[in-house]
């Protein structure tokens, strides 16, 4: 388990942003890189690799990886639906959207479809309350969700997965 030369350069570039001997500051950004590179989640092996890159004790990496909600410590599906369930989204119908996705994908919150394509998560406020209901899908937000939009997004994911396989 190693980064590509590109990613290794990126790591060096990140470390250079901080004073000398403070490369621990690079931990959050490098964990993001590792999660992207190694299949969307952080295995113990991936965390140990990050520890060795930044000359940290493995425990320093584990305690950070377990604190922040964006790091997945278990494998996830290819497409992770992270639907906001906090008050302002609730006022605009997020509960119905979550129920609809569960029904449509045949999974509960926290589960992954058997084909490994979709994971459904609920998350807390993502700073998009005015465009509710909403979810994060990969790098971007999908906002003003309706049942029709959910159908279209699922279709889009299936198509993309077919092309990329």
């Amino acid at each position, binding site marked *: 388990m190693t980064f590509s030369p590109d990613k290794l350069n990126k790591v060096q570039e990140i470390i250079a*942003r901080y*004073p000398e001997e*403070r490369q*621990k*500051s*690079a*931990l*959050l*950004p490098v*964990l*993001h890189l590792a999660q992207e590179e190694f299949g969307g989640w952080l295995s113990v092996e991936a965390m140990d690799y990050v520890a060795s890159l930044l000359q940290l004790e493995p425990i*320093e990496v584990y*305690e*950070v990886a377990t*604190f*922040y*909600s*964006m*790091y997945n410590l278990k494998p996830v599906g290819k497409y992770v639906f992270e639907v906001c*369930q*906090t*008050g*302002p989204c*609730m*006022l*605009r119908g997020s509960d119905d959207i979550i129920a609809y996705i569960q029904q449509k994908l045949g999974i509960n919150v926290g589960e992954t479809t058997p084909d490994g394509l979709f994971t459904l998560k609920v*998350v*807390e*406020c*993502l*700073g*998009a*309350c*005015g*465009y*509710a209901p909403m979810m*994060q899908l*990969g*790098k*971007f937000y999908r906002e003003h969700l309706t049942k029709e939009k959910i159908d279209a997004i699922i279709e889009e994911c299936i198509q993309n997965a077919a092309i990329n396989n």
Partner: protein
Amino acid sequence: MSVKLLLDKANIEGIRYYDAWRKNGGYAAVEKALKMTPEAIVDEVKKSGLRGRGGAGFPTGLKWSFIAKPEGVPRHLVCNADESEPGTFKDRYLMEFLPHLLIEGLIISSFALGSNVTYIYIRGEYAWIPDILEQAIAEAKAAGWLGRNILGTGFDCEIYVQRGAGAYICGEETALIESLEGKRGNPRIKPPFPAIKGVWDRPTVVNNVETLTAVVPIINMGGEEYAKIGVGKSTGTKLISACGNINKPGVYEIDMTISVEEFIYSDEYCGGIANGKRLKACIPGGSSVPILPANLLLKTAKGETRMMNYESLSDGGFATGSMLGSGGFIVFDEDQCVVRHTLTLARFYRHESCGQCSPCREGTGWMEKILKNIEFGKGKLSDIDLLWDIQRRIEGNTICPLGDAAAWPVAAAIRHFRDEFEWHVLNPQESQVRNYGLAHYADERNVVA
């Protein structure tokens, strides 16, 4: 007529990019500021009356004057772009659409504070925004506004974007500093304050995105002119992110002389309650501030018109008032359930508690559990008093203000909507199939409708 100081250029084509920004008066403030002394900039900010836009409303100029200047120790400015308070999405708007406004504000503020390396700490979920900011930084650098010896002044400045990874608590400034150091976001005990010992034990100022963008018009127009806009100690303009059951959710810039009623009902802002419904309640300053029923929202307890500013929104204290907070304005129509909304907030704070202090760690969990019972028809009347008791024991007994932030929404919901909680307990079946409705919270507008 509304004054726009931050969003005035938001609709110009291509304004996200350097050329359009520069053509429309961009970087004039940096040019002007770098000819001033750092002390003179701090003075202008003091004169402007600018108060921190992150939620606490602390005077920015005063905060800047506290930064320690020990010989030979670097100082840092850190921009707080963690924006995770439910109801708040204004900083995102600024960064996404007007990145150069923030970069300008950061250069000027870095110069004033003597920060040669400045960080923007942005919440990890805003995953596409670092690209926008980094492009703006690269453009500014190419044009000579960043880097070494800027405009021949001898001032060096670099700006780096650091992504968080999903933790509301990292918006608290000492937790943010811990996170920037690559650790868990556990708030530090103060003192020492960041102005003395912040990131890597160096003197540090943490300011909100909107605060730092406001420095640009302050330099352009002068602190005194800026202070003439608004009213009393609410000077300048404020961004309000409006959401919930209104016709036009979005980010609005207001000068703080308009009434709450105008903000909700005028077409220039929220455009009224959605679907022709009536107003029930509102949380006017982000999830942490007290919810107000419609009657107390539009008028203070003294019967005066409630205005959209720091003083008026907090008029009456927590008994009958609320706070401007972060400007996250959450509107409830007549069909919304206050118990259910309060439950989502209790869950939020339980999820986001860092766990260092027992009153916060345990108390938020208990509150969520009890609220869940009440919401799902399994509550007892004594649970309402128990909730009150728990929130009271959290408030003021924790390391950081997240404890208070978790306690206040529960306290205010019980204070103003106790009958709705009681109705849930007394009607366990009915409360599963319908909401309590408006009850007696109607403002005059509601009665007519």
